[in-house]
């Protein structure tokens, strides 16, 4: 049954073209302009503050990374890519990068993995809220304080060694935070202890947002609890997992306080991660321009991660249609 007559169906583009003719143009432009300025008024404080306090410094930092600004001798002499070539030639940068990658991988995989396990097993358990509170609690405490507490936990005569001694009966003297082979793992454990609560809560929120119906439908469709998890829950949780992963990666690259405080007595402290290395080069050594270049590398990495996440997110949303 076609009803459309040719007279009734003037093409949209034709109508728009007709309306755009001078005699018609701009009937609602006045209102649009007014709306724009009202919007600007509301945006102004946030935009001005973030632009001047956050974005301008980032640009300045990029510029700085191309100068010889070091100890006020070479002030703003252009250095081209010198800082970046120095980066590549400096074994410490390589070491710091490698460590950063290890650190970020560990601080992504472990908290997300454990967080997922916690989130799944705590749901609906008695005392759920108490348990959640306990696991989340370290997160509200400053990383510096956390660092101090764990510094003493890991100390040679600290709680951990004492605990192992008490269990094994043999004297233990491990300098957890002084040895190349233990320090990273030790800090990762602390980081995990502090951050898994956050990941868990984010995942719980993600789980809570999954509609109950498809899960019940799957149960009726004959799926075992494990199959329900694999085929329904996990795919629907994927977008949340992606967000959490991105946040974890960015947080991982940016992590400073914990590494700085806990690495206090470790000779390799400055290359524990890129963020620490940057702080060391800039604030301890005064190689500002070089440090700025490290910061730019860090920024580039996070941009890529964010971009990749956005890309994956679109694909994950694509899963839904």
């Amino acid at each position, binding site marked *: 049954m076609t009803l459309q007559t040719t007279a009734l169906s003037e093409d949209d583009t034709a109508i728009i073209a007709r309306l755009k003719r001078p005699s018609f143009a701009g009937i609602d432009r006045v209102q649009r302009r007014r709306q724009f300025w009202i919007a600007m008024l509301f945006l102004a404080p946030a935009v001005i503050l973030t632009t001047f306090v956050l974005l301008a410094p980032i640009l300045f930092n990029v510029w700085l990374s191309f100068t010889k600004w070091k100890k006020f001798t070479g002030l703003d002499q252009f250095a081209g890519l010198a800082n970046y070539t120095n980066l590549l030639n400096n074994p410490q940068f390589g070491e710091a990068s490698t460590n950063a990658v290890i650190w970020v991988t560990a601080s992504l995989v472990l908290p997300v993995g454990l967080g997922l396990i916690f989130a799944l097993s705590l749901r609906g358990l008695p005392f759920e809220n108490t348990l959640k509170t306990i696991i989340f609690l370290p997160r509200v405490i400053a990383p510096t304080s956390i660092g101090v507490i764990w510094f003493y936990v890991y100390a040679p005569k600290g709680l951990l060694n004492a605990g192992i001694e008490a269990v094994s009966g043999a004297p233990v003297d491990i300098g957890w935070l002084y040895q190349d082979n233990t320090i990273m793992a030790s800090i990762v454990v602390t980081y995990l202890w502090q951050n898994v609560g956050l990941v868990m809560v984010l995942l719980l929120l993600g789980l809570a947002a999954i509609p109950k119906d*498809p899960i019940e*439908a799957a149960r*009726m469709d004959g799926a075992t609890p494990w199959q329900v998890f694999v*085929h329904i829950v996990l795919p629907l949780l994927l977008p949340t997992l992606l967000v959490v992963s991105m946040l974890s990666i960015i947080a991982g690259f940016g992590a400073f306080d914990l590494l700085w405080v806990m690495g206090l007595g470790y000779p390799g402290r400055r290359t524990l991660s890129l963020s620490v290395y940057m702080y060391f080069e800039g604030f301890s050594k005064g190689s500002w321009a070089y440090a700025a270049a490290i910061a730019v590398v860090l920024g580039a990495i996070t941009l890529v991660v964010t971009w990749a996440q956005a890309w994956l997110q679109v694909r994950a949303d694509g899963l839904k249609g």
Partner: protein
Amino acid sequence: MATVTLSDIYKVYGGHVGVRGLSLDVPDGAFVVLVGPSGCGKSTTLRMIAGLETISHGELRIGGVLANDLPSRDRRTAMVFQSYALYPHMTVRKNLAFSLRMAGMTKAQIDARVDEAARILELEPYMDRKPANLSGGQRQRVAMGRAIVREPEVFLFDEPLSNLDAKLRSQMRLEIKRLQHRLKVTTIYVTHDQIEAMTLADIVVVMKDGRIAQQGTPFEIFTSPANQFVAGFIGSPPMNFIAGQIQNGQFVAPGLTMSLPQGRFVALHDGSAVTLGVRPEDIVPEGHGVRPVNGVEFHAEIDLTEMLGNETLLFLRYQDTALTARMQQPRAVEDKEEMSFRLNVDRVHLFDAQTGATLASSPATLSHALA
């Protein structure tokens, strides 16, 4: 295909009882509709049958087998949810195939069944779309498809049409009916819409407050309501109720005295308070439609009218009682117009004013009178 038997089923939530001692026999292949106002326990009952809620007390048998503690996946029931509950991350094809994959069927078997279901439901063009890219009606069909591919012994529907607009709703209603006539699978269908109940059911179960208020064929429910609640719930616009008394075997209300048909009602004491029920189509405007043979005449002022095209509803006020009458021919009626009506005495219902129970002498009498 299987019978479903509920005996004295209770569901208790915290301090509060959702379903109270419900007993119901669903014969093999029957289409049973649970209908009732919101919160009366329809969904809870259905979900207990599906195994999505535990049963607090009582016995549930599916195909004769005690199913109280059977996990959902072993009950051979399939359910269509109000929200459709499609798997948002899977294509239509995968949605349909999911249960078969879980059952460990081969690819060929799965494809055969899925294609068959898609054909029946005319879903072929959409097989590779995700649910988000389907219209409401299409999603609804996918949900049904997912239920039928499993070839379950019992279909469960929980308000499957309530998210569709009026047009689509009546269309899908027909499709569901056709489907069930074709597959002949035992079906339990929950709705709060009495029209769906009337049109779809072999057996209508009207529920109230976790209990069954009446069960029977749509025709029985409509013509011989067991109580005032059912009488008021089924039928649209709802039955008119007039409060009155029995005096000398007659029904007496302000401005209305009416002899009651012989034998239709149980013996009634003088002075007992009763409620008279009369459907809008049994208040006939003089000069329109079939004039009731045995009628009581009265005049009333029209308060408001609703012209529905093929018929007009007249809202009138007679002696402080608001009444609705149905006029079969469309005719413009002015507000405040004074009209005469004839109330069809042969079709009135009478209820105990206290308990609301019907005072009909036998449930069947009225339906015979009407047939």
